[in-house]
């Protein structure tokens, strides 16, 4: 039983890493990317080719996979962000990019085409996946609460105002895209070394959509939200196995319910951190003894 749960948890945490990257780009910078599966794929392929063919160190390969994704993100990001593509236009550009990467992977020799790469060493264990997830979550939080993160939020809230204040839209957006691509690449590398086999058809736009859905359902402008949402999204199909053939219907229904009941997402613009917990405990304590004294506080 534990093996089963561990397996689900591993895959869920790996997805969480990619989602954290997308959170920075979508939730905090306000740009929609429909092609993030491509970055996962690039990271996965780079890392697995390095370990299986060049026998490189696993962690080095992960990092290089991430950097490779980041590098490719600059190639797609430079022209699109320079041209100030936004909203749906940018989303369509990334959608096309995602498909293009998949087709390229299907036709390259080094990736073994559509047959995929086999015999990737199993280096991802529950422990190192968990540690890497924790580490990357901390790094993401630091990115978001740094100057870079605040610049991103300023652009998300009002890009005209941000530009007039002297924020360079292009560099801030490109930096966020680079960060999210590196995260997706690392997630991809871990994934490849967990399932030991990858092929281009694993990285379709369905996966990109799931990532976006997790960010939106989890809540824009929150790290906790997408983190939790991705865990739920990964676990749901397994929990819903009891529903048998109604599984996917229930999955869709839950997504719709989240959007209807909480349009801002599960944790819209909120974080579950120490500060929040402290305030919450304070609130509960304050409520118990003196109810009438409180209340008029605005």
């Amino acid at each position, binding site marked *: 039983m534990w093996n089963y749960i561990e397996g689900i948890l591993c895959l869920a945490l790996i997805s969480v890493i990619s989602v954290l990257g997308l959170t920075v780009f979508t939730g905090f910078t306000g740009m929609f990317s429909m092609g993030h599966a491509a970055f996962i794929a690039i990271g996965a392929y780079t890392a697995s080719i390095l370990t299986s063919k060049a026998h490189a160190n696993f962690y080095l390969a992960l990092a290089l996979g991430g950097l490779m994704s980041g590098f490719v993100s600059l190639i797609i990001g430079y022209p699109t962000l320079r041209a100030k593509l936004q909203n749906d236009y940018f989303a369509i550009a990334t959608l096309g990019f995602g498909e293009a990467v998949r087709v390229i992977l299907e036709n390259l020799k080094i990736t073994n085409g559509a047959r995929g790469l086999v015999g990737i060493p199993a280096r991802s264990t529950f422990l190192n996946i968990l540690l890497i997830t924790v580490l990357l979550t901390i790094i993401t939080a630091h990115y978001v609460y740094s100057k870079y993160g605040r610049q991103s939020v*300023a652009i998300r*809230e*009002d890009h*005209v*105002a941000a*530009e*007039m*204040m*002297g*924020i*360079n839209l292009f560099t801030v957006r490109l930096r966020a895209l680079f960060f999210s691509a590196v995260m997706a690449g690392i997630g991809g590398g871990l994934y490849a070394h967990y399932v030991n086999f990858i092929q281009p058809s694993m990285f379709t736009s369905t996966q990109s959509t799931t990532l976006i859905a997790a960010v939106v359902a989890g809540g824009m402008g929150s790290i906790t939200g997408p983190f939790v949402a991705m865990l739920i999204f990964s676990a749901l199909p397994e929990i819903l196995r009891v529903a048998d053939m109604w599984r996917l219907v229930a999955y869709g229904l839950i997504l719709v319910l989240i959007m209807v009941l909480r349009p801002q997402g599960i944790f819209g613009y909120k974080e579950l951190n120490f500060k929040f917990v402290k305030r919450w405990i304070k609130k509960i304590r304050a409520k118990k003894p003196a109810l009438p004294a409180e209340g008029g506080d605005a």
Partner: protein
Amino acid sequence: MLKVDNVNVFYGHIHAIRDVSIEAKDSQIVSIVGANGAGKSTLMMTIAGVLKKSSGSISFDGELLPAEPHKILAKGVCLVPERRRLYANLTVRENLLAGAYLRKDKAAIQEDMEEMFSLFPILKQRFKQYAGTLSGGEQQMLAIARGLMSRPKLLMLDEPSLGLAPMLVQQVFDTICNVRDRGTTIFMTEQNASDALAISDYAYVLETGRITLSGSGKEVLENPEVQKAYLGIKQEQS
């Protein structure tokens, strides 16, 4: 100070600004009046670097302006965009601090903030309030104050009276005069021609992308064509 020379701007095939040349001198209020779609905002956005001009030159203090908005702001040209564009869920203080984004001198920023409060007393009372809860007039004041926080030499205001009650319009224009008296050059666009022209040192009339008339604020205000077109004053039949 600001010199726009034969600038042309296109939106795809649409020729929005045609050979426009304007000039703003130190410590003046220069305004551009014109109807909807005349290209007022386009001209502003072009000077601020948001839109690209296809030909012509824009120079400031004798130097050509760079192409990107953040570099233009660093040169001392600040645009307060149309509809104010405040951060509604930040407080008045935070919005002002955001305006000083490019500056590193913390002490001077604090000083400037105090100065903004003396220039716009109403903002001092609203110090900790969210910008979204301010009234339209207060929001416009805050937008102007936020623009001034970057210590611009030239402040561009895009329709500062948009959506304000007539009484507030007067208040906003009064503060614009105060800002000018502090030594900041003002360059603004307005649909509210009569009030804007009354305080302008120089004015241009923009029609379908062309400058059709220019002169001191008073001259333009008294021009019969302008009166007919923008002020709704009927000519006496003689």
